């Protein structure tokens, strides 16, 4: 054989040898010393939530043989105890479940419903002006809570354990109490005036004389424990028809609320068809209305797909400019089109269509910023509180749960139903209360999201599952009000496009643009060089407090990688086994 052929063969053999070594090391979960932070690594499944103590509850359920849905419901109930500002029984939310057995994803909508007596102008005062106190801090602000119904529905249809088994850990936490972390003590201090104004709330969450608990002290929640025990005995009927219902209705009657026993009995969980899209080979599955999150997440990914954000580089002015322009257009559409699909028609197909995305891209320049005023003549969004919470669960069998739920504001309306320990949501403020008139944050409403009896207020919650080769790969979601969608977008892009490890993807600083106000918000951590370049392009930049709190999981080979977002302290990823 000639020398050339010999050397070629040798080369090929070497190549094979080297690549086979490479293949072997890919089996190991690599501790990656080029990243500053690292995800939790484990096998057997993973739970990530905003309170490590609640993640531990979920992980224990998985260890005992429960599936992802069992663990999710247990975690949600535990969060109602240990994360009172967002974990809840008196609010509502959305749960996305991938069932390995059924090989499909289901979307459970347990968003609150407006009471029967609710009306379009109910938050306007006698002069026709928006009354903030009514809309946010009175009993009128409460929508009919969906959490208990939603969790029970999910468990019965997709779980394997009994309701009693998954509610027990929450009961123990409420009865025996738990250690108050700095975070909780801080927030209770800050909100003391608002929260102690209500007697039941003051009694539940403060010591005698309205003194806030200090970090390290044990807080017990006996009334909440009672409610949980009633729920254990009677199931959701305790909440919607039984003793808890009685107390809710009594409080409503006493203090001018609208929720009646009929409202509670009428509450319905809705199973929806998830919205789906694709991004560079990955399948994106997310929440449809009454959440706007999934639609616009997919719309934005569609618009970003033709570009290579990876080449532009994370944190570069170029990539930030592009994302900002894309966000503007998505949010303009959101304000115009989105609402509860049981009441309004939403062009879901159109909005998530790749051709539509291409059409929108034609108006985007890579070198200059476009003015929001030029984009649409629609009206912007009602403000949504950043205090919601998301958790993610994956089990060893291949099931996945992404759950975001909330009271709306931190602690909702701040009103605890006496005797139950349950805080009521103030979700009604998520409707657009008056066309053309700003609410708390200068945001104005539009028809699709007007108040109507039994309607669900529009949400931005975006629990999401990303599939790779038809298997669940990434699960994530976030609180953050209107910033949820852009937060989830950026973490997804960080993983799918920038190849960051999951923790790095979650920790990296974030931006946000929601079309109106026409301002680009940026967390700290971006380079001042980049900010200077963005200003040159014409962006109006404002530094922002941290946005969102993404609790995410990746499943790869037999390993689970979990990332809890450090933006909210005490968040934690717990592995089932090492």
């Amino acid at each position, binding site marked *: 054989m000639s020398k050339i052929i010999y050397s070629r063969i040798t080369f090929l053999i070497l190549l094979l040898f080297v690549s086979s070594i490479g293949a072997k090391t890919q089996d190991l979960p690599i501790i990656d010393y080029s990243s*500053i932070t690292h995800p939790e690594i484990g096998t057997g499944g993973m739970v990530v939530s905003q309170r490590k103590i609640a993640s531990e509850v979920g992980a224990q359920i998985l260890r005992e043989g429960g599936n992802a849905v069992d663990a999710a419901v247990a975690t949600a109930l535990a969060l109602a105890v240990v994360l009172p500002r967002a974990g809840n029984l008196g609010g509502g939310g959305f749960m996305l479940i991938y069932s390995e057995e059924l090989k499909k994803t289901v979307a459970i909508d347990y968003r609150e419903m407006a009471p029967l007596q609710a009306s379009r102008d109910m938050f306007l005062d006698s002069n026709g002006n928006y009354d903030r106190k009514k809309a946010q801090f009175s009993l009128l602000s409460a929508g009919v809570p969906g959490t208990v119904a939603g969790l029970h529905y999910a468990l019965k249809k997709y779980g394997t354990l009994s309701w009693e088994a998954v509610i027990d850990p929450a009961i123990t936490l409420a009865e025996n109490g738990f250690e108050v972390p700095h975070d909780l003590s801080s927030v209770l201090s800050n909100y003391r005036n608002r929260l102690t104004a209500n007697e039941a709330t003051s009694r539940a969450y403060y010591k005698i004389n309205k003194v806030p608990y200090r970090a390290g002290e044990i807080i017990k929640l006996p009334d909440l424990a009672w409610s949980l025990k009633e729920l254990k005995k009677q199931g959701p009927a305790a909440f919607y028809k039984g003793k808890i219902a009685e107390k809710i209705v009594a409080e409503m009657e006493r203090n001018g609320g609208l929720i009646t026993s009929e409202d509670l009995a009428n509450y319905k969980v809705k199973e929806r068809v998830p919205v789906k899209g694709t991004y560079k080979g990955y399948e994106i599955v997310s929440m449809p209305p009454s959440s706007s999150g999934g639609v616009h997440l997919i719309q934005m990914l569609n618009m970003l797909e033709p570009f290579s954000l990876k080449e532009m580089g994370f944190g*570069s002015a170029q990539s930030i400019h592009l994302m900002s322009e894309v966000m503007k257009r998505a949010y303009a559409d959101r304000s115009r089109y989105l609402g509860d699909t049981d009441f309004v028609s939403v062009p879901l197909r159109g909005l998530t269509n790749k051709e539509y995305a291409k059409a929108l891209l034609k108006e985007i320049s890579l070198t200059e910023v476009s003015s929001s005023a030029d984009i649409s003549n629609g009206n912007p969004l009602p403000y949504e509180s950043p205090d919601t919470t998301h958790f993610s669960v994956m089990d060893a069998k291949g099931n996945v749960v992404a759950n975001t739920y909330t009271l709306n504001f931190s602690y909702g309306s701040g009103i605890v139903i006496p005797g139950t320990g349950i805080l009521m949501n103030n979700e009604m403020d998520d409707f657009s209360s008056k066309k053309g008139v700003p609410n708390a944050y200068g945001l104005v409403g539009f028809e699709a999201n007007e108040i109507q009896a039994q309607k669900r207020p529009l949400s931005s919650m975006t629990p999401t599952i990303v599939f790779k080769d038809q298997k669940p790969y990434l699960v994530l979601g976030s609180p953050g009000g209107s910033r949820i969608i852009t937060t989830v977008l950026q973490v997804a892009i960080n993983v799918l496009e920038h190849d960051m490890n999951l923790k790095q993807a979650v920790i990296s600083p974030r931006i946000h643009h929601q079309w109106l106000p026409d301002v680009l918000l940026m967390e700290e951590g971006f380079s*001042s060089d980049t900010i200077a370049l963005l200003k040159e392009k014409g962006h109006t930049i404002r530094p922002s407090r941290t946005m969102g709190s993404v609790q995410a999981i990746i499943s790869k080979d037999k390993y689970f990688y979990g990332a809890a977002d450090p933006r909210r302290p005490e968040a934690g990823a717990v592995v089932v086994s090492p």
Partner: protein
Amino acid sequence: MELQILDALRQELLLLVLRQMKDRYSIVFFSLLLCLSNNTLFAQTTLDYDNRIHPELAQDYMVVSQNHHSTDAGYQILKQGGNAIDAAVAVGFALAVTLPRAGNIGGGGFMLIYSADSQEVSAIDYRSAAPVTATSEMYLTESGVVRFGHLVNAVPGSVAGLIKAHKEYGKLSLKEVLRPAIQLARKGFPVSYDLNYVLDWGKNSMLANNASKKKFYNPKDKPLPVASILKQPKLARTLNIIANKGDQAFYEGEIADWIVEDSLANGGLITKGDLANYSAKDRVPIESFYRGYKIVSMPPAASGGIVLLQILNILENFDLTKSGHNSASSIHLLSEAMLRAYSDRMKYHGDPDYFNVPIDGLLDKHYAKERAKSINSKVKTPSEDIFPGKIPFIDESPDTTHFSVIDSDGNAVSNTYTLGSSFGSGVTVPEGGFLLNNQMRNFSHLYGKSDELSLSTSSANKLEPGKRMISTQTPTLVFSPEGDLMMILGSPGGGRIPNILAQVISNVIDHKLGFAEAVMAPRINQRVGKNLELESGFSPDTIELLKVIGHQPKPSTTMGSVQAIFLSQGYIHGVSDTRRPGAKAKGN
């Protein structure tokens, strides 16, 4: 969100009021009033939602180390009523059990101790030292300096240093303080992903030694599996002997016998005389002021302290705040300062018992100003202009470890110690159950063999009997302009250590980053004669601008692992650096 409105409202109010003020005194009065109202409004808010990452908060005491088991050990000691030194010694011995690659009793290091009573800082130098029969010829081979095995073992200082600290400053008994480490060695702990990974990564030196091979690997040379329990009975016995008999057992008694026996049988140089003659030394810490903050660090033979102070002295001549955090212009200034500080290191740093290090001259502010003048903000200085000639390097491994402790009285310990490379020389003393360092590599073995000026040929650091080799370990304390202890920090990272600390300190003082953000922010490194190195996370825009200035930035694996404590507004903020998995801050 509500807080943001309050912020905005308060700003409005302030402006309104100030506009009315004509009188200077009322301005002062009202500003004070506003500041006070600021404090009372936010008295309970110690968590800052502007930051993505938050420190661990405490009010009484705190331990931060690279390994959570060891942090827990220190925390327990503090909870029991031990002081900062008790906890530090507990952590020092615990890390020898739980972080075998860097935690040690077979290596050496440096400790700074702050006494709240006297408000004084003392420094203990327990750097390992050369056996008297060692000569540089022994270490030079065709393929470079000997890497592992018995020959590179220097006389270990850790036990002497830790015991000395305990004797002079501790409150609890030695037995109590060693108990957590002994428990961990006896009962064992689960092998983490990181330990498994590092054992595989560092296996060359380990597999070459029978005792290490048997302890850490299976017959197929695979490291201990993840989640398996690692028990270390021999190490437990050794620690127990020290608990009962003190450091005498290590330097003169049975442990010394074990070391020497193994050493002499295997081509090592350590004799009983070497061990008996070793002692940990008191040193006078060096200090300098940076924009009013007092920086206190380790003097030679630790040479990192001088480098750190020199870097800060040079930077002080520039307005870094204006340049912005991690902008191209700030990075350029850092890089230029680092170059100049390092070039001095090559010439002047050595064991002060053998070489007169011109500390005062090196730390002189005028000298720094001169150096600063030679910096051009728009163009990178070529290395040759700073330091002529080729620059072969001494290998200073990134695997060292630092921990920080503070107790409820305000006493503090800042400690960095090491085996040299990960797992040191790879040699486990068979009867003792502990690893030995490879610090003999860190002398300037090329001294006299070459005319080139470099760290390898430095006369200051040439090998001499009983001498300590230089180190970049830089345990540091920073005091506020009012004189209060504000930062306890240090890091592994070999030659990068002072550079890393300069950045963390500047992040806090110049850029006012939150404490956790200051530690987590991406870092740069500039070595003489090499490209600028950047961790991941810098903006591509910044990198482009650096290229325009003349830098050729190269991506780097992560640098250092700063386990630090910050004190502010009556709270203790512990920050564990996630660059090394398993690090933990814990306090009360």
